[in-house]
């Protein structure tokens, strides 16, 4: 069979390089054997030289390739090393430096796909040969390509107006670039605006947050779009077209002065499930809190008497500037942006899911977010820590850590902030009520600047710590002194004894979990989610604010539980990444594109609607489809779908794929033959 193959592309001069990657590859694959084999067996396939080297990615390794290209007139290069994900660019650039078109270089993975996943050295070496052979066959069909350059639109979309999103928006806007800041709720501020104090320094949350909110609201470069949600994302890095649904506020923002008379006069009181965490009330026309940005209220239609029954209009009657407009409609607005930052935050774990902790059943069991509202001076109790009756000050308070976290039945991860938050609560209870405070914990996790010192301080203040995960909270009194109390049953693991501790109030430090709709949001923006539905970073350590989708960045708790300092850092980091792109002005795109052979195209239009990037046009006059190279992202959907086989992807042509497979199989045939020979 090989005689036939020998004839084509005989003029190619291919160089093969096998990386040891220290012992990462060489520990499992006999690299010398692979090299010898390639020299001998792949000679007929155009391989003129093969080398193995300790670290191909080192400067010396790269220089080796460059030298060979010049001195040995190589026309193709195959590097067998790690995943193309990591070093494809390194070796392509090396080729380019030596004057070879970078797309004539092929990187095959013998680390992720061979040495790291096998233990049998012999078999691993054989597989490395097969993978290499596939690369050699494939590279023979490579074409020299030129990367595409597209301009970057200088505006940015930031989704989510919590602290991370505000930080991103401000950084970019301060650099002189336009930002659209989209927020689902009537005001920006996010969870941080619900807190009273922030750990470990106990700064007033509002005092440090509201200046940033005001800046974001007033900034000439920030277009604030609250009460709004993104509904559609088209385009690609540098050139996104984003459709945003601006829900009808029913308030004319050009007339409204934010005086608050409408809220005062509105007769409809509603439990505020969002901002007050269900612990307080708002009106049907409302701003969630006094420092809201923007200052304009919204009318909550499902709860508004006028919208439900057709009468009332108290707000309209009393508004001094005639700013109420019941006829406002939802509006779809499309903006063009070059980059997108998602900072969509988290949801609190629903403590009702653990029935034996009694939340929702036992009045004086509170969630952490409810407790934040309880301690907040602007909250429903003006900052008084009282029981659900609204007046009694508790004498004993139990704070339960790890509610819904570190538990395979619920969320099997540590929510990172609950230990510190619980310590903060303990401090606040002590300070404001003098009550006895118990903290129930599994492990105390206070690993950040000044965090452990805060733990020391709370210990000093006399908070009692019980190491044990709370088994249940009950009102079923059993022993004297338990009547009328909530009883926390727990094993004090350090004392080795089961204890029942009667308290007046229980605070559940509920964990953080991904937004209930994070999977849909991820799909909307074309990024991926972990099993826990957190957004996935491009690299968890080295690229924590990027995603696998170019031009879409992530910051804050949408990637996993985080405290405020970390959320702010990520917000700023995402802004820096965006600004780098904007500053560069254009972006180089992989020239991996689909193209349609008009002779083969039957005009069936199947590909037209499948294209996720709307890159395929249909010429009705000629009955053929055509790919717009600037829009095509090279995803390959159309290639696979075309019934006529008329579409092929640059860099992934049928020829390239088929010959790579042939290469893989060729080795098996040869290998078998080799064995036969050996036995003969």
């Amino acid at each position, binding site marked *: 069979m090989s005689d036939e193959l020998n004839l084509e592309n005989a003029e190619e001069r291919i160089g093969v390089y096998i990386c040891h990657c220290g012992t990462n590859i060489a520990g499992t694959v006999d690299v010398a054997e692979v090299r010898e084999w390639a020299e001998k067996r792949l000679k007929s396939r155009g391989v003129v030289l093969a080398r193995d080297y300790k670290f191909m990615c080192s400067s010396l390794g790269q220089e080796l390739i460059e030298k060979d290209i010049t001195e040995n007139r190589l026309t193709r290069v195959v590097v067998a090393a790690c995943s193309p994900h990591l070093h494809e660019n390194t070796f392509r650039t090396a080729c380019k430096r030596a004057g070879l078109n970078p797309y004539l270089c092929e990187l095959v993975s013998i680390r992720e796909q061979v040495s790291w996943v096998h233990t049998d050295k012999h078999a691993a070496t054989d597989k490395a040969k097969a993978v290499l052979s596939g690369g050699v066959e494939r590279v023979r069909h490579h074409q020299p390509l030129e990367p595409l350059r597209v301009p970057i639109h200088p505006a940015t979309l930031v989704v989510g107006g919590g602290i991370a999103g505000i930080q991103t928006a401000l950084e970019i806007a301060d650099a002189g670039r336009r930002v659209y800041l989209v927020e689902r709720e009537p005001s920006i501020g996010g969870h941080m605006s619900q807190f009273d104090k922030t750990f470990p320094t106990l700064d007033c949350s509002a005092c440090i947050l509201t200046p940033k909110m005001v800046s974001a609201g007033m900034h000439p470069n920030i277009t604030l779009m609250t009460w709004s949600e993104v509904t559609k994302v088209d385009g690609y890095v540098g050139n996104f077209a984003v459709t945003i649904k601006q829900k009808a506020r029913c308030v004319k923002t050009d007339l409204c002065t934010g005086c608050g008379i409408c809220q005062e006069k509105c007769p409809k009181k509603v439990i505020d499930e969002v901002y007050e965490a269900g*612990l307080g009330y708002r009106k049907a026309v409302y701003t969630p809190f006094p420092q809201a940005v923007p200052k304009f209220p919204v009318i909550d239609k499902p709860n508004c008497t006028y919208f439900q029954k057709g009468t009332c209009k108290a707000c309209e009657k009393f508004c001094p500037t005639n700013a109420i407009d019941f006829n406002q409609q939802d509006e779809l607005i499309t903006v063009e942006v070059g980059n997108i930052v998602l900072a969509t935050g988290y949801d609190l774990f629903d403590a*009702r899911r653990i*029935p034996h902790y009694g939340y929702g*059943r036992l*009045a004086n069991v509170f969630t952490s977010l409810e407790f934040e509202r309880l301690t907040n001076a602007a909250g*429903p109790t003006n900052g008084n820590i009282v029981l659900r009756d609204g007046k009694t000050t508790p004498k004993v308070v139990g704070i339960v850590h790890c509610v819904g976290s570190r538990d395979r039945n619920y969320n099997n991860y540590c929510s990172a902030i609950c230990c510190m938050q619980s310590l903060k609560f303990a401090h606040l209870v002590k300070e404001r009520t003098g009550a006895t405070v118990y903290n129930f914990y599994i492990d105390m996790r206070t690993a950040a600047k000044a965090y452990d010192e805060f733990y020391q301080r709370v210990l000093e203040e006399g908070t009692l710590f019980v190491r044990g995960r709370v088994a249940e909270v*009950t*009102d079923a009194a059993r022993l004297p002194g338990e009547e009328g109390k909530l009883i926390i049953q727990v094993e004090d693991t350090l004392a080795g004894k089961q204890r029942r501790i009667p308290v007046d109030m229980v605070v559940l430090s509920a964990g953080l979990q991904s937004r209930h709709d994070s999977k849909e949001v991820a799909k909307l923006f074309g990024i991926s989610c972990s099993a826990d539905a957190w957004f996935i970073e491009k690299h968890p350590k080295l690229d924590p604010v990027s995603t696998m989708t170019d031009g879409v960045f992530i910051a804050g708790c949408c990637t996993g539980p985080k405290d405020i300092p970390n959320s702010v850092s990520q917000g700023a980091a995402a802004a820096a990444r965006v600004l780098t792109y904007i500053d560069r002005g254009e972006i180089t795109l992989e020239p991996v594109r689909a193209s349609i052979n008009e002779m083969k195209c039957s005009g069936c239009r199947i590909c037209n609607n499948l294209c996720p990037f709307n890159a395929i046009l249909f010429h009705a006059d000629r009955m053929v489809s055509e790919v717009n190279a600037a829009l095509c992202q090279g995803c390959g959907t159309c290639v696979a779908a075309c019934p006529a086989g008329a579409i092929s992807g640059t860099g992934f042509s049928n020829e390239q794929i088929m010959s790579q497979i042939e290469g893989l199989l060729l080795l098996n045939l040869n290998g078998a033959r080799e064995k036969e020979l050996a036995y003969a």
Partner: protein
Amino acid sequence: MKYGYYPGCSLERNAAAYDISTRAVARTLGFELDELDDWNCCGATEYIAINKLAAYSLIGRNLALAQQQFHANGNGHLAADGRAQLIAPCSACFLNLRKADRYLQEDAKLRDTTNEALAAGGLHYDPGTVFVRHLLEMIVNDVGYDEVKRHVTKPLNGLRVASYYGCLLVRPRLGGELSDAEYPTELESLTKTLGAEVVDFPLKTHCCGGHMTQISAEVAYELIRRLLQNATEYRADVIVTICPMCQLNLDAYQTRVNQHFGTNFNLPILYFTQLMGLAFGLEPKTLGFGKEIVSAENALIKIQRSPESAAAPAPSRPRKKKEEGLPMPRMPEDEEVTA
């Protein structure tokens, strides 16, 4: 509908009321209970403490017999997935049979050696062929509340019922049990369907003491006391149960508990099938009433005293919206909670 039926040792005598009322309810609802021939004891919670393989072989004999009798020829006993259905009214039997089937599937060594032992008696069991179900779960899911309601002729209006599940039906979770391991609601829904008034019973899945009444009575008495006290606090007229062990401990030891703690609990402990039978208009005598140690006489009088109210729906008591104080969290069953 046709099901294999594994009554278990308790239902032969000490929990005969459960067996009698189960068969009566089955006749009314029109499903057939086909008793497993020559079944043996499931080993309760005892055999596994002595000898693992013997315990699994003991249970395995029942499963093997069920496979022979109900799976081999089908005969209308099969579930949609092809498994033969075996109904156990006793929670301990249910758990032992269900768990053995599960672990025999998971643990190849245990499966092989168990079958080696079974072979000595000429039997063989293929794990996964018998679908063990508890009577309550079957009635709720297969018969359904609507069908039950259709047969209610004498609603139990005014009777305040504490629904007690105990442990072994809801825990451990092996798949296919009730809605929750700690706060299931099926028994309440069923009781409500019968027209009775459901009281909150926070300890509804707490332990009745199990075999502790035999081994360390004081430990058991305390567990029993907690349950009786909790149900009394919520002003229950009766506790309804789904397990013979729970019934026995709460009923037969109630006097002893009263002596031990100086209390005066007087709570009849009934099987849910007995309440179903009453609501279906069956005679108490035909449902095993009179076998309970703590007499259910008062409860019966309470229902029968108000025949004119029989047609009226049970009063629903929405959670009180307090004007003062902070709002309570929203709960899915808000409207149903009794104050």
